[in-house]
């Protein structure tokens, strides 16, 4: 009898763990994606070269997460990160390229 109760408890616990993990995984993915996006945005800000579309993508990511749509939220966060990285690459490239445009 004691053994049966233990088995039932173990099954219930594993089912509960599975449900929790299934819910937590997308949220964790989102948290990781938004952290990467925000880090890239911080670097772009330091270079004084942010794009307006980056902020829009970040806002969309947060709105999707608030609505529980984690797949969309991750996609928007990844887009924000890519845009921020684009502006960083632009700033670094332009440091070398701008003199080529000067009227001589």
């Amino acid at each position, binding site marked *: 009898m004691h053994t049966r109760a233990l088995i039932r408890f173990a099954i219930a616990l594993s089912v509960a763990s599975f449900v929790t993990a299934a819910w937590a995984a997308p949220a964790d993915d989102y948290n990781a994606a938004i952290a990467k996006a925000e880090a890239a945005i911080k670097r772009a800000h330091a270079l004084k*070269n*942010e794009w307006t579309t980056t902020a829009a993508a970040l806002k969309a990511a947060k709105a999707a997460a608030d609505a529980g749509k984690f797949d969309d939220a991750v996609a928007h966060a990844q887009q924000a990160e890519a*845009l921020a990285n684009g502006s960083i690459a*632009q700033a670094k490239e332009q440091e070398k*390229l701008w003199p080529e445009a000067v009227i001589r």
Partner: protein
Amino acid sequence: MLRKVLLALTIVAGAAQPLLADNAVDPQADFKAFRKYFTERFPKVPLNQFVNGPYSMDEGLRKQWQAKEEFPPYDFALDKGKEMSSTPFKNGKSYADCFPNKGIGVRQMYPQFDEKSGEVITLDVAINQCRQANGEVPLDYLKDDMAALTAYMAFTSRGKPMDIKIPNDPRALAAYKKGEENFYTRRGQFNMSCASCHVQNPGNHIRTEVLAPALGLMNALPIYRSEWGGMGTTSRRLTTCNSQIRGVPLPAEAEEYRDVEYFLSYMANGLPISGPGARP
């Protein structure tokens, strides 16, 4: 051995020469090249007409503008600016106490390099410095009051040749160089610089608008824009340019913008002040 060392040093020095030449700051050489570029590209445009922006590029637009100038849309701003200019601060002083010639006919002298702070001071910044020195709240660089006051000061300076000085001070030369760099640096998701429109494409259309040449661009500011339905300061113009190319604008009158204004105004030396302007 010594011969080899000398040879190596000569080669290194020779290779470094073009780099040093490229990085040298020579505002006068830039000025000549800038002037040559625009006058050769638009040989039919009289030099003094470049200050009228798109109207110097397009005959149809020019006629519309001349008709509009009979009842200019910036008139109300001139009235307001004149009133602001003559109204004393709470301490009894006024703008006249802060500027040479009581602030009348001085637009062409700005921006200036301030030796004390080591920074470029635009007319708008000088106005706010005056206000703060007299216990007044600074004006918003993007709003109508600043536009009205600078419009009036520009109006009293019409026809006076732009007269920007770059003192032989490494900080002034560095500010000028940074202004040049910011002018030519591509920004925003559209990957465009100020020069993309105003050097590479003046006279061409961007949607329905005719792009103004960079030469004389600052002489017409501040401007009334039909698109805005009102007046716009230099800061409004620059920050809007940035957002239009999907770049996050810097704060109004950020050092980067002041340096751009310094560079562009120096390029316009000798050309008449035409502000306040009116643009579509």
